[in-house]
């Protein structure tokens, strides 16, 4: 009886479910960014199974060769095939990007959420510590770590991840504060739910959007930083191919063979631009401050 009565009352007259009127922004950016990122991903995937030549094989006779059927993009100063190196070299930036974002998020997100959820005093101290970390240049940290532990992809990932974490923590904190001020967070507290439940069930799903944006931008920063480290000889050690080191190798023959620098430069630019555009597009779509709702 209760059922019948209640159902009839609910069905009456209320307007149909309000449609989400969030504007779907940033779509062209997302498409362009995704396409560029896809190019890099495809290069990495292809290089796993096939490259035109062995990217590490040197050929003293064919040094600085022009593009040909055998060497599509020519060869470098040691006679290595540039096209093959370019393909093989795409794996490192992607790995560093993924590693950096993972390390940065594993450290940054818990710090940010904790800082927002503890009382104001403790939260403030956490964030001041975070500020000090942020003030320390990540590249410098990477150089120090490379000097202490010998240069490797892993040291680069750890150093860049530590550099990324404070920024992530800030974004996570501000997102968490917003979620905590919503009535559904109060309702969860009034339902006797503890901080861990709140963080996992309410905070994380609701800050997911801004975190994805942050990850995409972090990816771009990491790729650029890895190229810089490799260029300085502090990133991925030889003989593994790396865009950054290709730039460095090409620098000495820049005058006579500019193509040796152009190709890796274009590759880095493509990857960074791709992730940045993707990040911007996602921001336009996810950022609640830009949402247009009526």
């Amino acid at each position, binding site marked *: *009886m*209760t*059922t*019948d*009565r*209640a*159902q*009839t*009352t*609910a*069905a*009456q*007259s*209320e*307007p*149909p*479910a*309000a449609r*989400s009127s969030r504007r779907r922004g940033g779509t062209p950016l997302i498409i362009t960014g995704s396409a560029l990122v896809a190019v890099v991903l495809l290069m990495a995937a292809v290089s796993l199974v096939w490259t035109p030549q062995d990217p590490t094989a040197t050929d003293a006779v064919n040094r600085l060769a022009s593009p040909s059927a055998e060497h599509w993009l020519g060869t470098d100063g040691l006679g290595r095939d540039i096209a093959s190196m370019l393909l093989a070299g795409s794996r490192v930036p992607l790995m560093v990007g993924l590693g950096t974002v993972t390390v940065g998020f594993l450290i940054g997100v818990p710090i940010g959420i904790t800082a927002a959820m503890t009382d104001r005093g403790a939260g403030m101290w956490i964030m001041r510590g975070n500020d000090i970390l942020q003030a320390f240049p990540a590249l410098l940290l990477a150089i120090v770590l490379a000097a202490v532990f010998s240069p490797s992809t892993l040291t680069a990932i750890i150093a860049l991840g530590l550099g990324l974490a404070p920024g992530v923590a800030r974004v996570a904190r501000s997102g968490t504060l917003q979620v905590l001020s*919503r*009535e*559904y967070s*109060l*309702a*969860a*507290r*009034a*339902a*006797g*739910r*503890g901080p861990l439940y709140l963080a996992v*069930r*309410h905070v994380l*799903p*609701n800050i*997911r959007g801004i975190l994805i944006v942050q990850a995409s931008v972090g990816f771009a920063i990491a790729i650029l930083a890895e190229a810089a480290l490799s260029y300085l000889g502090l990133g991925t050690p030889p003989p593994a191919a790396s865009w950054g080191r290709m730039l460095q190798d090409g620098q000495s023959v820049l005058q006579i063979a500019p193509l040796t620098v152009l190709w890796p430069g274009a590759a880095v630019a493509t990857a960074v631009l791709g992730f940045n555009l993707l990040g911007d597009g996602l921001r336009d779509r996810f950022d609640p401050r830009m949402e247009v709702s*009526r």
Partner: protein
Amino acid sequence: MSTDPAERLLSVENLTVSAGSDQLVQGISFDLFRGERVGLIGESGSGKSLTCLSVIGLLDEGLHAEGSITFHTSGAAEPGPETEPQHVDLLNADENQLSAIRGNRLSMVFQEPMTALNPLMKVGDQLAEVIRLHHPKTKDLRPRVAELLASVQIPDPQRTATVYPHQMSGGQRQRVMLAMAMANGPELLLADEPTTALDVTVQKRVLNLMAQQVESVGSSLLFITHDLGVVSEVCDRVIIMRHGRIVESGPIDRVFTAPEHPYTRSLLAASDLETHPATGRLLTLETADDAHAASDTPPDTLESRAESVSPAPASPAHEPPQAAAEHLTLPAEGGTPVFNAVHSPALRVRDLTRTYGKPGLFGRGMVVPALRGVSFDVAVGQRFGIVGESGCGKSTLLRLLTKLDEPTSGQVEVNGEPIPGRPERQLRWLREAMQIVFQDPMGSLDPRMSVTDIIAEPLHGASRSQRGARVNELLDQVGLPRSSAEKYPHEFSGGQRQRIAIARALVTRPKILVADEAVSALDVSVRAQVLNLLDDLVEEYNLTLVFVSHDLNVVHHSCDVVAVMSAGRIVECGPAETVMRTPAHPYTAELVAAIPRVREGAP
């Protein structure tokens, strides 16, 4: 300027507003005559605001308006005796033509006084800007600005002209908005829910001011609102819209006393919180007609006719469980009394105080008392209403009662157990015994959680099947289909969301339910349904209800005992009927007097 009353000022013909293939306004036509004050009434989604925005040409991109809106202005920007009357098609006018008219012959007051003024510009400069735009030759605008501010009864206009919007109250800001809108003596003033964001006592003053301004300048008024009471304060003619169509229009006296369309009838009933003559339940859109049609038929036949009304409690209104509460007011001098004192109450509050801020490191801090020594009891099974305007401390009080915040001093006892200062892990019983329904049905449901997860949130350690069973049971009780369980909040309307919030609050079978403005964000017709639902569930679950609202009318309907709060204290408390009929404290009297009445003699 001619003042011929029959002269048309605005003609809307066959106006259609569409978003893609959706028609949001479906071919409406109406005329507005010079000097006339027309209320455009409708609930959310009725298209009233879109109509208004089409007139002033501020529709969102993505929305498309068709038809014609003709503005018969008496002249262009420069007032002069020789200006020819013009007929401007507002829908097809170019931006230049519109700019010359907007803010000059046609102006608008928006709903939200917080965001409608530029926060980085002094109030006087914003006013001056509006005048200068249309009268660029004027030299010193300060006297005119001061005059305008004075005309909207802003104290010390010279000084006020030099402050920033955040230094003013909401009511003052809305007056500044009104002054800006009236600055150039517009022929037509559009007002879109101009007082909805204001407290009732402030609302009353702003409405009076608006009526008076419009009259003295000789403007016409198109007043958009959902509130029938407000309309009757300022308008002479009303147009009632629903689902993008006009359902009824006519002189306000005729429409409000002898409404022709059933929707108008039910809207009036819902606004007045009219109850069914036989069952004592609030009239909703469906039941209103039954009640009116059958008001002379004997109650037993009526019972069967009002099919959506359950065989409700025989007594028309709920009886207080014990002897009527004592009617007390805050004495001008001396300590604060204990209001509504009873033996073994469900909720006991003593000398509760909460201040925000602290003195600060260098003595610059500010201490703001939000709650200043509140003492009262709520008896088991009682429906206790707390009424007050914004900033009176009612939300603070509610957070202290539910232990979402710690008091500065004082005591709260729930079923005899003290609450403040106890760690959360000792309060598991409280979280089950006491639940809250929040105001904003948008904000109180996590958009990323399914309805099942939302409703079952307070259930700790229940198995999947137990949760599912209980959620289904509650969906039935709050009148939502069981298929809702797998859906997400954005798929529901405001009223349905509030039902979900109520279901969540009842899932643990609490003893005490705290409702924070639970119906304030809802349309009037939905409000009646949700209040009926709350009534039923309070019976069914034997709840003690603490109902916080700014709306004395709603509290009067839903509660046995009412406490009126002002500036952090309870100023009056007593049986709802008594407080409403014979308010003893001057503040309560002002509050009661400020309630906009739809019809004389309505409750």
